């Protein structure tokens, strides 16, 4: 598969994989879940697993099914929603089927943050580093998260609900399902009006130092 071949290329060339097209439902999904000036999120592949790969410094492996992550002589088993964080100079190997590799681009533009920092309630902090933090965003059906704010962030949906991927006739660019999203900074109040608990894994940038 050409998509797989591109997915294993160096990060410097990964933006070219945005041209990926899953022509039929039997083709594998794109190995690039998200790519912008801030992050590259790879699906079920780890193009940044080798420390010397260009542009690969801070990285997060997010398990979507049971996987094993090996770094040096230590090995960790991760279940859905669990993460392993790697810093510049770390190498690792991932065994297992479903995961995302979130690579923070070292030369990304300045982080955009809201006018006011208001910590969101009801979430669970998982990791707190100098440049970003990771938490599980939770909200039960019918529940409200009072007014709060976010900087720019990557959202990986762990609970999804029904979600259609589509192939159009005549062909249009594929509509990729929104399991991985990049969210801009903002202040908002939210309510879960669905019928399933909200459960998202969030990698959120910290505001730039003043």
């Amino acid at each position, binding site marked *: 598969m050409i998509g797989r071949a591109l997915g294993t290329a160096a990060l410097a060339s990964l933006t070219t994989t945005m041209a990926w097209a899953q022509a039929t439902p039997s083709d594998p999904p794109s190995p690039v879940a998200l790519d912008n000036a801030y992050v590259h999120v790879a699906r079920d592949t780890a193009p940044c697993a080798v420390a010397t790969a260009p542009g690969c410094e801070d990285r997060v492996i997010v398990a979507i099914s049971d996987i094993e992550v090996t770094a040096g002589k230590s090995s960790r088993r991760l279940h859905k929603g669990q993460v392993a964080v790697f810093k510049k100079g770390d190498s690792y190997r991932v065994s297992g089927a479903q995961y995302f590799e979130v690579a923070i681009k070292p030369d990304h533009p300045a982080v955009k943050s809201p006018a006011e920092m208001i910590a969101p309630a009801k979430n669970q902090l998982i990791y707190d580093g100098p440049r970003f933090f990771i938490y599980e965003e939770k909200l039960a059906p019918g529940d409200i998260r009072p007014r709060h704010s976010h900087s720019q962030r990557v959202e990986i949906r762990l609970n999804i609900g029904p*979600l259609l991927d589509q192939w159009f006739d005549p062909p249009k660019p594929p509509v990729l399902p929104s399991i991985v999203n990049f969210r801009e900074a903002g202040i*908002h*109040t939210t309510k879960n009006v669905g019928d399933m608990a*909200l459960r998202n894994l969030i990698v959120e940038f910290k505001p730039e130092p003043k």
Partner: protein
Amino acid sequence: MSADGPPPPNPVALENEYVRVSRDTAPFSAAGGGDRVIVAMAPVAFMAGDALQSLERGEFFVFGPGDIYKLPAGAAFFEVAIKPDHPPVKEPPEIIPPAKNMMLYEGERFFIYEERLDPGDVRPRHSHCQRVEIRLNNGPMLDQWFDAPRPPLQPGIVNWREPVVHTVRNVGDLPLRNLIIEFKPEPT
């Protein structure tokens, strides 16, 4: 938007030249308009003419132009009113029935079915005319109120869909379950 909480949901879930879908209110309950469909989102008992009717979530009742009805206050439902003077129905270049759905009602101008698709399952190439989609399984779905204020983002529980020929796969983790009111192609 205050910090006190979100405002009540918009009573108009969808409005265009073809339909108006009202949420938990029935502004077209009197006779004299066009066709209307009451879709229950929770169990509800209501008067359809002189008769008491009960519906479970996802069930519906179709009313013709001369029918009247009365829904109780506090009930969870949608009233789909078909506009009698709507523009011609747009249809796809090819009519291909979708597989795996359950037909529930077939009328002169529209039909109603429950659209179903299990996680991981594929619906082969098929087509649709214009239609109203009411999601019965939603998954997590956020309604949001922004600061500084923006128009609220209404959750996509009720959607208007244009004609299409497509193949779909449910890549989610809940079965797809939508109640669809689809226009029939215009008579030729």
